[in-house]
């Protein structure tokens, strides 16, 4: 059996067949055994019902992207499986397990030329009181991945504790039957043993680590309107914010949500909302208000396929333009993007800190891929970024809320502070906050708001910069992991490629970018958009080398490491 650094398995079934449960249990078991892993799900646009598949990649070390191909596919049934066929790429070495009674084997699976084995999961489940085919599938997968039956059985016990003894017994019986059914099967691959680490192991989704990052950064109020795929952020915050003395309000719409958090932040409470593209559009006017009135807020945009309602359950990076350029007038603000499940925590915490420090809104561009992925990761390191805005408490001679202070950040009086009364305003205002239409005041306040963002020293966190070589890949957000993996493969082919992945997209960092590009004669830009938005953004703001190629594609199929690797090798041949 060949040892491999990573193994990918897909469990497919119709909605309700329990494929996602199997994926979660496998991830948890692998994690308990010391491996790391990434679990994404694919469901139809209808969110409930239809087809569902759990896509799981396990590895000896960190995993931040899906593999090009799946080594193992178990179809609990083949209902609607053709629809996500393109997402589950198979090769001749892959093993496919299906149920002869699970419907017709989809053409996409036949085409791959993979080894096919039939196991009658439905019939086997029927032989067990209350038995379910997905538990048989769990047993088969567990056996083939080299997991311990005992460990999986313990996890079942833990997870089904509330469902009664019968549910536990029947699930365990199913698990056992699955292990037995796969006894003589071989996958041909064995996952390399986990890399030893002393770190605490975490199981969390990107949306959850985003929410925790916000709380760590100081957020104590959230208001939002539910939308896929951002909802889990809110559902995690709802019970957890009160535990740290915070509050969440469900707003009547996104216009209310953004204005609620502006109100709360005006009152001194660091505040957040989370949404997706359609909601971000509705928030844009008020984001300009927060910019002009210098009220810090954090807006998480978990991007999905657009435009309009697009594909709510799948990923894209196409809100880049609206996040950076969507506000009317000249409205400098922060735009940041997390690069992995673990980085969602850091980036959101940092975004909160920056918003508070600079008294301005921050948009965090997460996406469905990283937001809804569940990962087994090493506990991310603690960082010291806690939002503390400069407050005004002494008012010697009339309070100037918008004073043209050096660095552009002026101390903010919090309601309740005697002597600091002012009116926050979206109208062009004087240093005291009084509405004006004077050209000089307008220019001065626009300068102030621009200066405070441009003069701030963001440090090394602004981007992930790795490696050497005259070729650099420039990418962002959740594609960073795929790019890193492609670069790793190129290195084993003897080709050195550097990685530049800005975490801070706005304000631009021309000097740092120029330093990162030093010695590079070619760049490959990788992004998940149809219109090459990131390429145009880079072109507009940075001096790029003469040789530029773009690897861009809209969602919902994510760009895989193999595609990037291929593009590197083609250019290096």
């Amino acid at each position, binding site marked *: 059996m060949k040892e491999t650094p990573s193994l990918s398995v897909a469990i497919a079934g119709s909605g309700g067949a329990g494929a996602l449960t199997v994926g979660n249990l496998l991830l948890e078991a692998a994690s308990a055994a010391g491996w790391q892993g990434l679990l994404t799900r694919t469901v139809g646009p209808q969110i409930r019902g239809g087809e569902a598949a759990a896509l799981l990649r396990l590895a000896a070390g960190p995993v931040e992207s899906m593999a090009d191909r799946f080594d193992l596919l178990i179809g609990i049934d083949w209902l609607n499986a053709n629809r996500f066929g393109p997402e589950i790429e198979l090769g001749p070495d892959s093993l496919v397990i299906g149920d002869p009674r699970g419907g017709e084997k989809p053409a996409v699976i036949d085409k791959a030329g993979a080894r096919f084995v039939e196991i009658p999961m439905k019939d086997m489940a029927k032989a067990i009181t209350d038995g379910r085919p997905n538990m048989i599938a769990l047993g088969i997968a567990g056996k083939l991945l080299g997991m311990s039956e005992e460990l999986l059985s313990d996890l079942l016990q833990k997870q089904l504790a509330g469902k009664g003894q019968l549910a536990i017994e029947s699930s365990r019986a199913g698990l056992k039957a699955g292990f037995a059914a796969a006894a003589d099967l071989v996958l041909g691959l064995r996952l390399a043993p986990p890399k030893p680490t002393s770190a605490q192991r975490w199981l969390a989704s990107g949306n959850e680590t985003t929410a925790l990052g916000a709380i760590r950064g100081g957020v104590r109020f959230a208001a939002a309107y539910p939308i896929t795929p951002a909802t889990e952020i809110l559902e995690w915050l709802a019970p957890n914010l009160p535990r*740290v003395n915070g509050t969440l309000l469900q707003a009547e719409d996104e216009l209310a949500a953004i204005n609620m958090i502006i109100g709360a932040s005006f009152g001194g409470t660091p505040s957040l909302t989370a949404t997706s593209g359609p909601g971000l559009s509705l928030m844009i006017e008020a984001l300009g208000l927060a910019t002009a009135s210098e009220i810090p807020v954090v807006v998480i945009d978990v991007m999905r396929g657009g435009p309009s309602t697009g594909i709510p359950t799948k990923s894209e990076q196409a809100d880049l333009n609206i996040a950076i350029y969507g506000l009317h007038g000249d409205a400098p603000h922060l735009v940041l993007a997390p690069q992995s499940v673990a980085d969602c925590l850091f980036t959101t915490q940092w975004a909160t800190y920056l918003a508070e420090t600079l008294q301005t809104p921050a948009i965090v561009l997460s996406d469905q891929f990283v937001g809804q992925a569940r990962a087994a990761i090493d506990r991310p390191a603690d960082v010291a970024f806690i939002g503390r805005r400069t407050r005004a408490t002494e008012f010697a001679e009339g309070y100037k809320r918008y004073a043209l202070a050096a660095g552009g950040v002026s101390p903010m009086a919090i309601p309740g502070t005697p002597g600091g009364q002012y009116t926050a305003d979206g109208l062009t205002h004087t240093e005291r906050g009084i509405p004006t239409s004077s050209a000089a005041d307008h220019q001065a306040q626009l300068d102030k708001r621009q200066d405070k963002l441009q003069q701030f020293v963001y440090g090394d966190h602004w981007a992930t910069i790795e490696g050497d070589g005259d070729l650099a890949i420039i990418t962002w957000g959740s594609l960073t992991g795929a790019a890193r993996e492609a670069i790793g493969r190129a290195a084993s082919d003897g080709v050195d490629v550097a990685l530049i992945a800005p975490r801070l997209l706005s304000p631009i960092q021309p000097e740092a970018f120029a330093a990162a590009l030093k010695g590079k004669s070619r760049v490959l830009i990788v992004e998940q958009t149809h219109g090459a938005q990131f390429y145009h953004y880079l072109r507009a703001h940075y001096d790029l080398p003469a040789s530029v190629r773009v690897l861009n594609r809209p969602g919902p199929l994510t760009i895989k490491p193999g595609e990037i690797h291929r593009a590197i090798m083609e250019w290096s041949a």
Partner: protein
Amino acid sequence: MSIVDRQLACKPTDYKSDVKPVWCPGCGDYHVLMSFTRAFAQLGVPPEQIAVISGIGCSSRIPAYTSCYGFHGVHGRSLALAAGLKVTRPDLTVVVASGDGDGYSIGGNHFLHACRRNVDMTYVVMDNHIYGMTKGQPSPTTEPEFDTAMSPGGTGLRPFHPLVIALASGANFIARCFSGEPNQTADILLEAIKHPGFSFVEILSPCVTFRPDEKEWKNLVHPAPVAATNDPARAARRIMTDDGFNIGVLYRGDRRPYSPEICSETIDPSELEKEFEQ
């Protein structure tokens, strides 16, 4: 000065800023401003403990004319902004100032939900049955036959009935005032502020520039003939059948105001990560 000392010294002028209003001479909103400062003085809460929140419109200019904390936000969203502030800062007195276009048209949905949500704050709508700031377009309360450049010959639409809508949506206190009676308006505002939950005060405030006919309002208004009720059905009947010029408190409800869930034992944020640990 301690808070008690300050309370003794409270005069309406303590609540006025030195910013000169940009309203047209004779605009009803001057009187509304006067009622605000009188009510605040009677309330005896120092200006830094009061926040006046508004959207956009002539009426929404009011925050800067007070010496309280203020927020002049975007068109139609003042109630949401105020709710965020009040929920996180229950110690503050929050008053929202709006116009009929700001509050009932672009902000209509927030109006319904603010009444439902019942956060303890006071919503004042300066209703002039017109868009003043944008120079005379019809608002949701404009009469159907009223001729404007955007609606030649009138809209033909039934005017919106804000008080009934507030009642049906769950507002806890409903009153109508006339800006030309600043003392009475101040009294009602004071009562509204003190009433727990979401209180709604409609102030008929003439726009002398685009509705000179509204100067006639001072002859049309009259005290409500019967005392306020706490029965929503009776209040609805009265409000639906009145002539639109009844002045006074019309409804006092006793719904419990919204207050956020409070955990008996709060924890250090670092403990939240235990959920992720395996």
